[in-house]
Every structure is written in C-alpha cells, then in structure tokens.
C-alpha cells in the first residue's frame, strides 16, 4: 500500500493515472448532474413559501459546500507539502485554489440572485455572507501570493501558510447562521436531527452535491496535470510523453 502510494506520488505515474481516470470521472459526473438537474428543476415540487425561486438551492448549497470542502483540501494538502516536502501535495494544493474561488464566487452570486426576490436585497452584511466573501478573498490571496513568487517550491510554502491561517474562517462560516441570528436561513440538511426538507427535494440536492464533488476531482486533476507538466518541463519523462504523443498521431 505504502509502495503503491509512493509510486502514485512519482510524477509520470500520477500523470498517466490521472489521464486514465478522467474519462470515467467525467461520465459519472455528467450522469449525476443530469439526474440532479432533472430531479431539482422538474420533479421536485414547488416550495410553499418561496415558490420556484428556491430551485436555486440546487446550485447554491452544493457550491457553498464545495467552497468549504476545497478550502480544507487545499489547506491539508498544503500542510503535507510543508511538512514532508511532497511535490504532488503542493501541486494539488495550489491547483485547488482557483476551483475553490470559483465555487465561493458561485455561492455568493447564486445566493444574491436568490436573496433579491426573497429578502428584497442583492446583498446584506449578514454574518454568513460576509464570512463567505472573506473566503473568496482568502482564495484570491493564495492565488496571488503563489503567482508573485518566482520559485514555485517557495511559492507553494508561502501559499500553504496563508491557506493554513485562513482555516480559522471555516468554522466561522459554518456556525455563522447559529451564532448570529441574522437574515440568512439556518441549515436545512446538516442538522443533527432529521433534515427539515422533504425527500423529493433532498435527493436532487444530494445528487448535485455529489456531481459537484466529482466536478472538483476532474477540474483539480486537469489543473494538477498541467502544473506538473510546467514544473517538470525539462524532465526525461515529459520528453518521452510528447514523443509518444507524436507517434500516436502519425
């Protein structure tokens, strides 16, 4: 097992492994996405309070979950890179940042488009919204810091430390709706007792959440593969890779 992981950690192994994994992940992601969209937009009944505007939940909540999940992955991979100097962990960490930023952005924008008809305002300085905005800025900070340092090993280390400091924001976002009783509604799914959402609405939400997880796996592998190729552009395996590619074409 350890040996297997070690082999996977080597650059050419990871490259070919991710390349072979991508079509399967994409197929599974598309199936889940279509099922979730059909369930959420067509099958699920109209909400008795919010009408059909609530259907934004099927992208808003999975995006918000992913923005938190990806931050934790980014910070954890960053720590692994800091402590054990594993190049692949550094690459996974920094490749996660733009995807996490995209999900934080989507959580804010879809939330805004839901807030306008329901609350009457595009934006309020509510605790949940403000802490999510801070999360977006943390992502952008990590990306900017990484880009500003020429040596990519040093850049990874600096970005990982910033990501680690920002972890303090994660529980704040999660508990914000309980600590500060402002406009954003409380959790409907992750309550410890039974979730306060009907099963015909819950199933599509979970399908979408799963589809978004797979999407992240695809997007992070695509970015990691690319970053790996940039860092190892002068290696023997990269040269071999392009030679084989040319042969395959002719």
């Amino acid at each position: 097992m350890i040996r297997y992981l070690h082999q996977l950690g080597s650059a050419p192994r990871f490259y070919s492994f991710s390349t072979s994994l991508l079509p399967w992940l994409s197929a599974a992601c598309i199936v889940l996405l279509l099922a979730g969209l059909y369930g959420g937009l067509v099958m699920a009944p109209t909400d008795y309070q919010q009408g059909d505007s609530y259907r934004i939940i099927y992208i808003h909540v999975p995006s918000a979950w992913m923005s938190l999940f990806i931050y934790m992955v980014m910070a954890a991979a960053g720590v692994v890179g800091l402590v054990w100097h594993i190049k692949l962990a550094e690459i996974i960490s920094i490749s996660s940042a733009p995807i996490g930023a995209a999900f934080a952005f989507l959580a804010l924008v879809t939330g805004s488009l839901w807030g306008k008809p329901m609350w009457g305002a595009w934006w309020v300085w509510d605790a949940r919204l403000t802490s999510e905005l801070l999360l977006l800025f943390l992502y952008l900070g990590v990306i900017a810091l990484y880009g500003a340092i020429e040596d990519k090993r040093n850049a990874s280390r600096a970005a990982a430390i910033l990501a680690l400091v920002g972890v303090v924001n994660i529980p704040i976002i999660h508990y914000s709706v309980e600590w500060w009783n402002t406009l954003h509604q409380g959790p409907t799914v992750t309550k410890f007792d039974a979730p306060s959402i009907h099963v015909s609405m819950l199933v599509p939400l979970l399908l979408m959440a799963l589809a978004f997880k797979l999407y992240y796996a695809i997007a992070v592998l695509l970015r990691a593969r690319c970053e790996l190729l940039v860092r190892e552009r002068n290696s023997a395996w990269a040269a071999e890779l392009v030679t084989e590619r040319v042969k395959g074409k002719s």
Partner: protein
Amino acid sequence: MTLSEFFHMGGYAFYVWTAYGITLVVLLINILLPMQQHHKQLNRIARRVRRQRRNL
C-alpha cells in the same frame, strides 16, 4: 407541467435561469482553460525536444 411553465419558473425565471447560466459558464471555463493550457504546454515541450534533437 408544460414547457412554458417550466421556463417561467413561477415568475422567478430571471433569477433562476441567470443563476444556472452563470454557474454553467463558470464551471465550463474551469474545465476548458486548463485543457487549453495543457495542450499549449505539451506543444511547448515538443518544440524544445525537436530543437534539442536537431542540435545533437
């Protein structure tokens, strides 16, 4: 439910479809951009390899 009712979204069509549209665009960009960069990087390496072979 008819098709026009589906697109009408109970009067919230603008909010619902804008949210879904923006999500689609952002998610697609995050797939297409790395794919394009990957392609460019492979070509860059291929050029270097060819150059080195010629100089041998």
